[in-house]
């Protein structure tokens, strides 16, 4: 069965119900992306999860009036923390990719300076990645995925084609 997508939400439905579904979709996208981030060094996996977390935050930012603060606020804070943890790694991936190109174009005199810069960013990335993995492991250990699935159960979908890339799976 196809998961519901945000472009399929009925504009006339109550806001709370729509936001529950929207947030469920985005949490699902975050959890789906997580194993690849933990398992490998693929910068695209980090980027994908970070984008999912930004979309999640966009949804949770506007739904604060819809759900009891007691449990909503901690999950909202967690969503923000996910973006931050991934951002420290992602930002360095972006810089390393650009500097790889600079290095190729550089003269022999310039290359040692670029290598020095790259080495420093790689060291920082390694630290940032360790911190990110610790954070993500703690999410699992604290039962956050289960909690989000309980509070925001996955909506049942239809077969309608989507125009927007908030899809979770097919």
């Amino acid at each position, binding site marked *: 069965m196809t998961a519901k997508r*945000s*472009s*399929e*939400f*009925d*504009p*006339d*439905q*109550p*806001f*709370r119900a*729509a*936001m529950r579904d*929207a947030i469920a979709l985005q949490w699902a996208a975050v959890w789906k992306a997580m194993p690849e981030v933990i398992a490998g060094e693929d910068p695209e996996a980090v980027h994908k999860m970070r984008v999912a977390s*930004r*979309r999640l935050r*966009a*949804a949770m*930012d*506007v*739904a604060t*009036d*819809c759900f009891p603060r007691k449990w909503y606020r901690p999950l909202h804070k967690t969503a923000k923390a996910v973006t931050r943890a991934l951002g420290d790694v992602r*930002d360095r991936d*972006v*810089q390393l990719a*650009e*500097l790889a190109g*600079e290095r190729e174009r*550089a*003269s022999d*005199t*310039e*290359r*040692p*300076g*670029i*290598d*020095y*810069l790259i080495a*420093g*960013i790689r060291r920082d990335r390694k630290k940032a990645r360790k911190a990110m993995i610790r954070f993500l492991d703690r999410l699992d250990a604290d039962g956050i995925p289960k909690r989000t699935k309980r509070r925001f159960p996955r909506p049942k979908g239809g077969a309608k084609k989507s*125009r*927007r*890339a*908030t899809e979770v799976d097919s």
Partner: protein
Amino acid sequence: MSRSLPLPPLDPEASLAANARRVLAVRVDELFSYAPVIPDADASEALHDARIAAKRLRYTLELFSSVYGDEGERAIERLKELQEDLGQLHDHDVRIALIDEKLSRLGDLPEAEADVVRPGLEALVERERRARAMAHAAVVKRWRTLERQKVLARLTALATEPPPG
């Protein structure tokens, strides 16, 4: 760090469409409040904040795409372009700051090593500054395009409640 403008109280029992329009109005105001800083090449922090505001607006349009229809989809494509341009600018700012920091700390290295790495860092930061200037020009050009295409007016219309009946 950029803070979003506060949202008005939203009604959980009201329709998705009604609330989506209220959110859109705030996000549109937020992005276009940066119009005065866009031409200012030195306003790095404010330009970074504009990038975040563009992302928030784009994500809002995507989140409520069933409400905003085709006009919303067109706006998303334009915002992606603006976001890309602002992103390039930001990446240059980050690299320039990083390189400047490394240059300022070359005194911590043995002199021979510092002499080997300095030329590359100095050449790179000069290239980055030139590239940054071009990236900022691209942002200004993109913004002018948005103005010509009356994107603000179109988005404001999307955020307006439909007349009753």
